[in-house]
């Protein structure tokens, strides 16, 4: 049970991200929360492909191949990280536009229909 510390870390990261999204009012902090949630999901994908005592799936030409961790979850995590960078860039540019338009990043000061 105590060997499941990576899964506990995943759960902790996701909870921290959800807490930031629920209780913080600053848009930059909410973007940071989304990024923390993303890293939690990436860590979950990585831990699913690990075999105990294994090395990275890179061959060195030795005759005796050691136990290797699975490459497919790592490749999909690479895809997920790049998509995360793209989404982060889009979110930050939208935040810059919001700040320029309203002069504030506080959620409750952005104004609704009454502008």
């Amino acid at each position: 049970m105590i060997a499941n510390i990576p899964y506990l870390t995943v759960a902790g990261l996701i909870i921290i991200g959800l807490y930031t999204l629920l209780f913080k009012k600053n848009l930059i902090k909410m973007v940071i929360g989304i990024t923390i949630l993303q890293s939690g999901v990436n860590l979950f994908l990585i831990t699913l492909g690990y075999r105990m005592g294994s090395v990275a799936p890179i061959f060195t030409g030795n005759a005796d191949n050691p136990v290797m961790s699975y490459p497919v979850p790592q490749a999909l995590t690479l895809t997920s990280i790049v998509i995360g960078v793209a989404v982060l860039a889009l979110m930050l540019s939208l935040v810059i536009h919001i700040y320029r338009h309203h002069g504030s990043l506080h959620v409750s000061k952005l104004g609704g229909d009454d502008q």
Partner: protein
Amino acid sequence: MKGMSTIVKTIANIGFPIITIYGLYVIAHGHLTPGGGFQGGAIVASGLALLAVAHGTSWVESKVKEHDLSMLESLGALGFIGLAFLGLLMGGAFFSNFLVDTSMLFGAIPVDGAANINTGGTLPLMNFAVGLKVIAGLFAIVLVMAIATNKEED
């Protein structure tokens, strides 16, 4: 942004070639060592961002236009898809690795289960295409954001 002091500019000038060569190494050896097109492209783009921070965005803007950057990015994407379509034409399936185990470029057969720089078929070519795309794309994002936020301060 006017650029930082002379010390920062000198250190950035020294550090930039090293970072760029390391990133290009990671791209070129993507099928042998940890790394690949995305990671090496991110390294080179961070080196370019270092230049942009040290020298100021107006200096960078006079050297390179974001129009050329988006053209480079489209070139990388076209190279990637073109290689995939070449696999359809010559290997019979989309994304087929048609260069492996031939006597052409990057087509050597691995000896004793260890690949070398000239093996891998289309993998190094795709690494180059994706690396070009990531370098141009990330630097375009950084440059556009820096320019847009600088115009406000003037």
